[in-house]
């Protein structure tokens, strides 16, 4: 039989590989068992440590507002066996500590209400809440301080916001812009409430209006304070819009004088008044709804050769855009001469 060196080497390498793998398994198994035994020994010992829990304050008095920033985290110093400590620290999740501050006793100092709570007084309550299997040694901080301000309700006026309205050609606002409510109750810290006299909304910008507008606008306070609450959150604003047309009417000029023995005659004695009126109201317009006149006083007559024609009365639903002519000449004479 012929000796083959290469075949001999290959057979030896395979045998060694099998031995090597077996040794690794044994080693790892021993290591694992050692760790477990080590862990059990460690968990069996007593440990001292601290765990942080977030605080949630409950039963805040309705008529008071917390204005300071009390601690939001309690640090519990614990003594326990390793396993318990481990489960409290790492398996408790985001569990919070609820602290009832509804029964605090307050002391009024400079217009605010102060109070404090010793955390040692609520340690048993905390242990119960967290189902701590450890011994609670201490709590940090040892005192929680609170500063409250009394809450106040006040009724304030609602005012229209700044308006930037633009209408389509021939369209205009028709009557008054209305809104409701006209007042709201504001609830908040007394010191803030006292400074609020009105509320409004953001500026309203509307372009090319041709229909009535009904808007719900969020109330905004002139003072920015996130503790403020309003009885209504929105204001309903109505902007009436109508199509307008132009009309004209010839009207006599009346004279309003302070000179009893003299009479004044104007030339012309009539003017043409051009006005804008909503289509709905066009037929309502008549001559008797207008009154135009000139005022004259003796001291003005020498200074002015013409008198301005004034609008003495006009219907509320029209807008006079032109009086032609705007000024008139006049002759003044004794009443029995001038007719």
């Amino acid at each position, binding site marked *: 039989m012929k000796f083959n060196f290469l075949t001999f080497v290959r057979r030896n390498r395979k045998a060694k590989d099998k031995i090597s793998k077996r040794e690794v398994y044994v080693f790892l198994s021993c290591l694992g068992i050692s760790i477990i035994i080590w862990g059990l020994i460690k968990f069996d010992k007593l440990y001292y440590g601290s765990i942080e829990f977030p605080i949630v304050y409950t039963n805040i008095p309705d008529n008071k507002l917390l204005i300071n920033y009390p601690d939001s985290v309690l640090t519990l110093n614990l003594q326990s066996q390793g396993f318990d400590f481990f489960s409290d620290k790492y398996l408790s999740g985001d569990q919070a500590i609820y602290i009832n501050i509804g029964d605090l006793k307050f002391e009024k100092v400079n217009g605010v209400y102060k109070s404090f709570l010793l955390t040692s007084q609520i340690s048993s309550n905390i242990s119960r809440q967290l189902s701590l299997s450890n011994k609670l040694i201490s709590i940090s901080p040892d005192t929680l301080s609170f500063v409250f301000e009394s809450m106040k309700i006040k009724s304030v006026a609602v005012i229209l916001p700044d308006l930037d309205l633009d209408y389509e050609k021939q369209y205009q606002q028709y009557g008054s812009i209305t809104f409701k409510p006209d007042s709201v109750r504001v609830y908040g810290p007394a010191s803030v409430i006292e400074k609020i006299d009105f509320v409004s909304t953001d500026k309203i910008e509307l372009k090319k209006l041709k229909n009535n507008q009904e808007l719900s606008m969020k109330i905004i306070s002139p003072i920015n304070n996130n503790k403020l609450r309003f009885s209504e959150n929105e204001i309903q604003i109505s902007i009436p819009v109508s199509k307008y047309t132009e009309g004209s009417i010839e009207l006599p000029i009346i004279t309003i004088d302070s000179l009893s023995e003299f009479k004044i005659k104007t*030339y012309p004695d009539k003017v043409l008044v051009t006005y804008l009126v909503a289509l709905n109201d066009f037929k309502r317009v008549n001559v008797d709804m207008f009154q135009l006149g000139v005022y004259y006083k003796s001291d003005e007559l020498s200074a002015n*050769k*013409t008198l301005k024609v004034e609008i003495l009365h006009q219907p509320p639903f029209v807008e006079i855009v032109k009086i032609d002519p705007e000024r008139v000449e006049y*002759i003044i004479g004794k009443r029995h001469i001038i007719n």
Partner: protein
Amino acid sequence: MLKVGLTGSIGSGKTLVSKIFEALGINVFYADSSAKALYENNEVRKEIINIFGTSILTENNKIDKKAFAEIIFNDKSALKKINSIIHPLVMGDFVKWLMNHKNDPYILHEAAILFETDLSKEFDFVVAVSAPENLRIERIMKRDSVNRETVIARIRNQWSDEEKTKLADFVILNDENELLIPQVLKINEKLLNR
């Protein structure tokens, strides 16, 4: 007594000027008003129907003033015919009217056409009221609620402002810049001192 004619193109403001003269105590004969009254006269009515036919009448057998104005303002020959009927009658009224004012220092006879019908020769002086054409058009459009074309057609049937002011003895400019009353006062003073 002086007889003074007061004329001016349509929309020039003749009546306004007349009213100012009246406020100064001057009596004014309104030829246009007299002419309008004559249209109610039966004899005049018959003559108008003879010329223009019954289509010129309203349902109440009265002269349709709007249709009539439309015809005479747009047809020079029709205007000439109607003037030949009306003007002698108007002048007859004027003569009667004068009898009541013979003691006045002067009187005014306001008429839209004086030079066109040669009536200007009947007066000692003629005052012409002048206004820019655009302004006159605007005034008539507003006064009579008619469109621009209608007003222009009426204006073209009359003499131009330039022709009238050239022949007039006094001119009053009613362009809404110049004050009317001082111009009237000046003319009034001159006429009173004649």
